[in-house]
């Protein structure tokens, strides 16, 4: 029947109850759904579905890029000013990590298609590791910015509305200049935040590792669960490594003094404040300094920040945050794949899920390929 495949044939056989000439079409195969006629049809449907999903993802991110484009066009000075707070080395490191994870993911798809179970497991594990490493670096960057008061508008006490209304209620940090962290204090706070993170993640990593090993030996039939715990452990450890590595990069840069990172910037601002000099980064005409002439030096240094810095960081956190959420989602599905790969579900006929997750993962990489230069490199 369907093997005749002439489009003008006027009958359809949605059941596939009649004769099947091909070995692949055996409906007793565990992963071939009843409503598909062949592996190929199932794979093609899934693939089109994933592409449609990626279309959806592209348009989802397009909103963020649109907000970015509009604000960048209307307030280029804010983006130029803010650029110095984003650390290129960290961004570059993360870019390479993601590119590498894309390589291992693509390699994993190759392994799955060729039926190489061990290769697939290895590739998926490395991909997962890279994903978590990325998040570790991101965690470092977020805490650094948080401590340097580089926050979105509503949490930034210095973002005041054009019409004179007050900014959103919850001030995360205090305004008092006395309490503002100078460089060293900031460094300490950052380090302590990261230590908490590393400690917490380390504990999670060890506990889940123990759980994984325990399940593997006590209940070998629950291998899937063991893999899930193992994957969590792997991720936690990768996050720790990521955070430590970023601190390393930070010190390296600090020593060589090439990059103005957020805290050194704050330091500079405070130097300026102490010496009562004009602020380091004077705003472009027509944006700030409304009260500059009548105000004490303490406010001056603050107001040298362009008025919409908070909006830039709003966009920054929205873009990288939504991207990070996608990484997290990717880690969840990678863990699921890993468990299935260990169970040996995937065959050259049935590797669709690996391919689909791979496509998703590459799209997440793709978004970062644009985010990195747009946020870190345009000054």
């Amino acid at each position: 029947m369907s093997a005749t495949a002439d489009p003008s044939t006027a009958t359809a056989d949605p059941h596939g109850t009649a004769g099947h000439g091909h070995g692949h079409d055996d409906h007793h195969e565990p992963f071939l759904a009843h409503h598909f006629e062949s592996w190929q049809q199932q794979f093609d449907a899934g693939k089109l579905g994933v592409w449609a999903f990626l279309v959806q993802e592209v348009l989802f991110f397009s909103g963020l890029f649109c907000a970015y484009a509009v604000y960048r066009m209307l307030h280029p000075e804010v983006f130029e000013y803010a650029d110095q707070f984003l650390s290129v080395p960290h961004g570059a490191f993360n870019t390479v990590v993601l590119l590498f994870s894309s390589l291992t993911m693509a390699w994993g798809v190759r392994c799955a298609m060729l039926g190489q179970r061990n290769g697939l497991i290895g590739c998926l594990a490395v991909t997962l590791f890279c994903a978590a490493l990325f998040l570790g670096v991101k965690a470092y960057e977020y805490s650094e910015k948080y401590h340097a008061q580089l926050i979105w508008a509503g949490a930034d006490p210095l973002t005041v509305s054009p019409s004179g209304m007050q900014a959103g209620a919850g001030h995360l940090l205090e305004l008092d200049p006395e309490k503002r962290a100078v460089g060293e204090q900031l460094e300490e706070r950052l380090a302590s935040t990261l230590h908490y993170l590393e400690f917490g993640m380390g504990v999670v990593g060890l506990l889940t590792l123990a759980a994984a090993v325990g399940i593997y030996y006590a209940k070998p039939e629950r291998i899937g669960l063991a893999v899930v715990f193992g994957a969590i452990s792997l991720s936690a450890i990768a996050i720790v490594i990521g955070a430590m590595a970023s601190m390393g990069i930070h010190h390296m840069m600090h020593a060589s003094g090439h990059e103005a990172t957020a805290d050194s910037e704050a330091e500079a601002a405070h130097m300026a404040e102490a010496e009562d000099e004009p602020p380091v980064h004077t705003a472009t005409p027509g944006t700030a300094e409304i009260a500059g002439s009548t105000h004490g030096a303490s406010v001056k240094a603050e107001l040298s920040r362009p008025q919409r810095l908070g909006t830039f960081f709003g966009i920054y956190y929205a873009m990288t945050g939504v991207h990070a959420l996608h990484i997290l989602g990717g880690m969840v599905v990678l863990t699921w794949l890993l468990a299935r790969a260990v169970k040996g579900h995937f065959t050259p006929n049935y590797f669709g899920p690996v391919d689909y997750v791979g496509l998703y993962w590459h799209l997440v990489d793709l978004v970062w390929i644009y985010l990195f230069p747009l946020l870190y490199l345009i000054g």
Partner: protein
Amino acid sequence: MATILETRHADVMPLGHAPQDNYLTHGRGFLSWALTLDHKRIGVMYLCAVCSAFLLGGIFAMLLRTELLMPKNGPEDVFLFTRDAYNQLFTLHGAIMVFLFIIPGIPAALGNFILPIMLGAKDVAFPRLNLCSFYLWLVGALFFVLMLVTGGLDTGWTFYTPYSTSTSTAVVTAVFGAFILGFSSIFTGLNFIVTVHTMRPPGMTWFRMPLFLWAIYSTALVQVLATPVLAITLLLLIAERTLGIGIFDPALGGDPVLFQHFFWFYSHPAVYIMILPAFGVISELITTFSRKHIFGYRFIAYSSVAIAILGFLVWAHHMFVSGQSAISAMVFSAITFTISIPTAIKIFNWLATMYKGSISYATPMCYALAFIFLFTIGGLTGLPLGTLSTDIHLHDTYFVVAHFHYVMMGGTLIAFLGALFYWWPKMFGRMYHERLGQISAVIVFLGFNATFFPQFIMGAKGMPRRYANYLPEYHAWHVASTIGAYTLGIGLVIAAIALIWGLYRGKRAPANPWGSATLEWQCSSPPPHNNFDAPPVVGDPYAIHQLVYDPDQSAWVPRQEKIVESEAMLERHTDAGTTGH
């Protein structure tokens, strides 16, 4: 080949009684429904769900129409509801109708049930995702309920900033609910796109697809392409309200007009999510009940796709007075006009289909005829709204309210009702109450016009929308409108009675009670679990002349001897036998 066809027909064609094993009887108990992967059951669950939402939204509509019976003197004067309560009423009416009823209405409820059968497939491509869509709808609806009990919503369904970031009502809950509903809609659309592309059986070429499928397919394109922008908009709105990220809130340096761009990039295409499936339904109804082949099949099919694509280019016509630039206004006005062409084409083609037909006044056709009348008004009143200078005057007045109710309610809801009556026998295996159904169509038609036509006049005179109070000069019109609304409500209740009566008392439905040539009428009513006991015969979906009425079975049966001839003719007409995808 002819012999094969004939034997197949003998197997498939009407049995005159419901088979013992159909999708309704296949599996019993709550879990067999809650965990079902059968698109038909999911469709039925959707149907119950969206109808409940419609009931709720309808109650809010009745309440707000009642409030408008009397004009009030000043802010302290109260008739039934306070100003805040009224603002909540119209917001809830709008939000529930849009997000919970009209967007999932035809595609998710009826489309789910009909699309795979019409296509000749066993199921949609991703049955689990399909069930997931339904549960996402349910979760989204739960958030709406949660919003109702934790402070309500008074932003209008459009959630414009900065009002939505500053009001004290449960905006975040509602917005999160709409966010989830968005994904329900995206997944439904995605599922349908893949189903149409990959699940068509051999012989079902693109140009043998019934126009309902073209409409649902075009709708699905819009759902997948536009809804994600709504999702990110709502996510940013939540972030704006909870964290203050400063993108939309002018107090933090944000831009409310940008929010409107984001919102309408989804919400204008979304009106085509609402109306396109209705076009599909009407194409089916007109052709079946006129006993005519559809006129201009390809023009109608292409116009669906054209409307879906053009629908993306006109969003800023909602913003002509919002402070957007004059240049944008010009561009968007120009593109807005182009969309009227494919729409007009459809109406002309439907009329041409009726020409020299044999028009039956069964309830679905009554609704289809009402649709043509009401939708024509709805469409034509879009013209002064697309014309720049008159839109300035009419924007945000009752004229707009009347216009989109003529399109959304006079269009989509009427088509939804027509479709419900049309496919009711297929879905539940019993006929509805014909006389009551016809009466309901007439009452709904009259009530609808009485409700919304006065609003055109009020709007043109300058009565702004979303007003809890109005000047005394509009009093008579408002009273007329409210009386119309009650009539409309009564009509809808009668329609519900006609349908529900059928479930219990209706006579057993044959496989093909209407004489339609699309595939869903080839399986028994209700359809078996796997849709077809024998493979359906794929042919021209509008070759209605191949069917003759058999009084013995009180059903339509194929005119056997004609099949060969019609096959030959069909191949002449659909020269796209090998187009494939």
